[in-house]
Structures are given as C-alpha cells and as structure tokens.
C-alpha cells in the first residue's frame, strides 16, 4: 500500500520502529526455537563454561533405543499421546455440549458461562493446589462421596495410572472454558433464520443440531480441535503441581524439563543434560507437527466436503 508519511530518509521510520519488536522475537523466541535442532546434536550442559561437543545423532539414539531409559522415554511418548487423546476428545465434546446448551435462552446462563470459564485464568499452580485439596484422600469431599459407593481411592497418591487419570480430569476442568467460549462465539454467528426455518419444518433437536449447527460450526470445530490437540501435547504444568516427577506418570514435556534442568524428585534423577533434552524437544516437535498436520488435513477435507 502507498506510504504517505514522507519519502527519502523518513521512509525508513516504519522499519526502524519495527526493529525492536522483531529483534526481540528472533532473539528470545524464534531463534532459540530453531536452535533447539542444533543443540540436539551436542552434549551441552547447563553449566556455565563447560565445553560443548558435537555428538551427531547420539542423543537421538540414546533417547529412542538405549536400554531401560529409552523404554521409559517411549512410555512417556505413549502417555503424552494418551493424555492428548483423552483431553482432546472429552474437552471437545463437553465444551460443545455446554456451548449448545448455553446458547439457548436460559435463566442464569451468564452465571454458568462465567463459572465454567473462570478456572482458565487461575493458572496451573492455583488450579493444581485447589484440586490437591479437593482430592484430599483422608475424608476429603470426593473421598467421602466415593465412600458412599464403597469406593476408596488415594487419588493423586494412587497407582500411576489412576493418578495420571486425575491429572486428565483437572486439565479438562481447567481448560474446558476456552473450548466452550470458542464454540459459543461460533454459535452466535449462525443466523437465527435457519433455526426458525427448521422449527417451521418440524425438525427435532437432533436434526437441528446435525443438519444446521454442526456443519455451520465448522470454523470453531477446526480451531478447537487444533488448539486442543497441540495444547494437550505440550501441556505438563499440572503434572508438575499435582504429581511431581513420578515414575509411570511423566509426559514428554515434563521429561524435557527434568532432563534439561535436573529438577527431579523421587527415584528418578538426572543432571543438566541439555543436548539430550533438546533432542527430546525435537521428538516432541515432530509429534506436534505430524499430528497437527494430520488433523489439519482431515479438517480441510471435511470442510471442502461440507462447504463444497
């Protein structure tokens, strides 16, 4: 577009003012992100002044193929996929259901909307601590509730599989609001005329949903699916707050952090192995890319089918 604010030297002013923001982005975010690939071929540590050597594919070989540690790593990769699957499907379905319900004329719908959305802003620490208390195993509310049915649980202190499942619950509790809000925004763009016409034709609730709401909601469906998939592949903060670094519960994000910064507890210990952690980051990147792209392709095809 034509630039109106002078010529010659003053034509450079936009570039000059743009520079600080761009440089910051390259130096703090984009550069480091891409440099992860370079670091993954080295034996870098987190210690200042320690020499950094090129080790080729050693980190990858060790991460994927070497002994028990590699099996643990692959288990963490598997757990990340399981976490992603359950969080995405449940959060998506629940968010959609709640949004469709709240899109009706209902008394108190603003209250419900605000309540469900609120945990989003609390952050992982507060979300985690609130649930640690709610899941208090010695006579806490949920423990007492389950006791009615004769069920006992240690919740977060239980066997790894069960503790892991509770993190999924908290993750969905914490983020369902975002999914709901995006669906609600999408629902509001659907013209009331369609619903009016369907009502005149005598369509029932399910027919209205399947033939009007669902297809016309495609943009929000795409956004939510992609955000949920990528977000849950990368999320691990709640594991940190709720469980700590516990064997049998780690996901890939936590593993990267723990190996890179040696912040572990319990039976698993590690030092600052940043080259190795960088290789794990690249594994995660490939996962996000492959799954993200697959979802994207499926969504595009579906959109072409519906809209075309």
């Amino acid at each position, binding site marked *: 577009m034509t630039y109106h604010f002078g010529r010659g030297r003053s034509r450079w002013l*936009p570039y000059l003012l743009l520079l600080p923001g761009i440089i910051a982005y390259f130096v703090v975010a984009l550069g480091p992100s891409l440099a992860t690939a370079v670091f993954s071929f080295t034996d870098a540590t987190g210690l200042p002044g320690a020499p950094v050597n090129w080790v080729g594919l050693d980190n990858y070989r060790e991460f994927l193929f070497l002994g028990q540690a590699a099996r643990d790593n692959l288990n963490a990769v598997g757990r990340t996929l399981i976490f992603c699957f359950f969080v995405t499907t449940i959060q998506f379905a629940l968010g959609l259901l709640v949004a469709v319900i709240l899109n009706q004329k209902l008394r108190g719908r603003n209250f419900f909307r605000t309540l469900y959305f609120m945990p989003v802003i609390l952050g992982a620490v507060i979300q985690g601590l609130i649930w640690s*208390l709610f899941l208090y195993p010695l006579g806490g509310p949920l423990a007492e509730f389950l006791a009615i049915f004769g069920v006992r649980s240690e919740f977060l202190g239980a066997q790894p599989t069960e503790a892991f499942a509770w993190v999924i619950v908290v993750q969905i509790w914490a983020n369902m609001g975002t999914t709901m809000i995006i669906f609600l*925004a999408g629902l509001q763009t659907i013209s009331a005329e369609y619903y009016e016409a369907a009502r005149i034709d005598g369509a029932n609730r399910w027919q209205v949903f399947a033939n009007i709401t669902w297809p016309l909601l495609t943009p929000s469906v795409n956004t939510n699916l992609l955000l949920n998939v990528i977000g849950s592949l990368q999320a691990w903060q709640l594991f940190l707050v709720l469980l700590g670094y516990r064997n049998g519960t780690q996901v890939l*994000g936590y593993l990267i952090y723990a190996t890179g910064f040696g912040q572990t507890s319990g039976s698993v210990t590690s030092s600052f192995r940043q080259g190795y952690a960088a290789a794990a980051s690249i594994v995660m990147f490939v996962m996000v890319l492959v799954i993200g792209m697959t979802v994207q392709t499926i969504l595009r095809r579906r959109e072409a089918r519906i809209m075309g």
Partner: protein
Amino acid sequence: MSTTTGTVSSRRKPMDWGKLASYGFLVLLALVYLGPLLMLVNTSLRTTPSFNRDAIGLAVQPNFENFAEAWEKANFPKYLLNSVVYTVSATTIYVITAVFVAFPIARGYVRYAGVLLTLFVIALFLPPALIPQFQLILRLGLYNNPIGYILLFIVNPIGIVILVNYIKTVPQELDEAAALDGCGYFRFVWSIVLPLIRPAVATVVVLHSIGIWNEIILPTIYLTNDDFYPITRGLIVFQGVYGSDWPVLAAAVLMLTLPMVILFLFLQRYIVSGLTAGSVKG
C-alpha cells in the same frame, strides 16, 4: 425470537423436558466447578486440628488467623511485588514494541509484511525454545537476574496476530488524511492509531499479563534466589513447607485466587475476545 413468544409457548406446554435436562446438566457441572472452590474457602476458615479430625466439616466458627499466618510465613508482600514488577514491565515493553510491529505489517508499509506475519503465526507449531533460551540467558550473564527473567516475556506472537487483524479494520484513508495534515509516522501511530485500537490492545495486555502472572516453569528454571521469586514460585515453595497444614495453605491459595476471580469478572470481555479472535472466521 422475543421473550413473549417464549413465555406463551412455555405456558402452553407446562413441562419442557429439554430445558429441564439442560438445567440438570448445568447444575451438575456447576457442582464440579464450585465444589473445589467451596472446599478451598471452607478449609481456609478452619483450624488445623479440626481439619485433621474431619476434613469436610463446615467452618461454623470461622477462624481467620490462617490468613494472617499465611500472609506472613509465605512472604506474600515480597513475592507479590516481584510478580507485579515482572508483569507490568514486561507487558509494557511488549505492547509498545508490538504496536510498531503490527501496524506496518497490517498496512503493508514494510516489505515482506506477509512473510513477517507468517513467522509469528508458525510459532504455535515450533519446538519448545526452552534449552537454547536458557543457554542464551546463561551466556548473557542474566541467569538468576530479574532483567533476564523479564526479557523472556517481551514477546508474544499471538498478540501480534490479534493486533494486525484489528488494525486492518481501521480505514486506510485515515493515514492519508493525517499525512496531508503534516502528521508524522510516529505521532500518527502513537496518538491516533493507538487510541483507535484500544479494545485490541486491552485484550493483548490482559492475555499477556495473565500469562506472566501465572507462569511457573520459567521462574523455577531461571530464578534461584528467593528474593526474586514471583508469587507462583513462592506459593509452590510454601506448599513444600506447609503442605500438610491445609487450612493455612488453603488461606494462602484463596488470597491469590480471590483477586484473580474479581479481576476476571471485570476483564472477562477482553479475555473472551482474545481467545476467540479469528477463530470463527476460520
């Protein structure tokens, strides 16, 4: 669809099962959302011995001492001040630089504007920057240093995308008219564009601030001196020490939750518009 037709039809049909089921579902779900919060409030008002005897007993005689104890022992004033300093300074730097990045990109006043925008969009997919970022801060001598910590938060690619989209709705004729009147580029962006894009700026400010305020990974990695801890880190450390004393811990958590909830009620509009920006168009 006016309210009158609604009343008439509901009078004709005495029982709307769909609505009833909707309410039932909403209330059940509300219990899952309110339950943990009510437990937090109740526990914060109880004494430790009585909590240990019966974890879900109601705080019939509220005990407010937990709050004073938590406030003091958890070093709240110090950590809160740190969090405020980090959040305000990083957000200010970020938003000012972001406007000058977003405006020329939205207008095409710089070459390769489309490429630049794409660089911000792909950030969502890129590998975590954690390791090289750490090496960078370490080599700059900014490890365990508030300045280095603030530096980590002066970028936010999604914010740029939100600003670009909003600036595109500001008519281009304005630029021409202002330039004809002799208004310079800087003054135009700063005193004419900035006020016009206030809703988008507010959204970005709110989203970015919440992100910094709630961050727990980066302070754990970068700040080892407890004089520099933000409140999130302070709370985790406090949990490590007082984790078994739930009433005091609950009081600490509640003191941090309440202001966020109140703030949320005021800022909800901006958070919602930030999260839904561009999502409905696809």
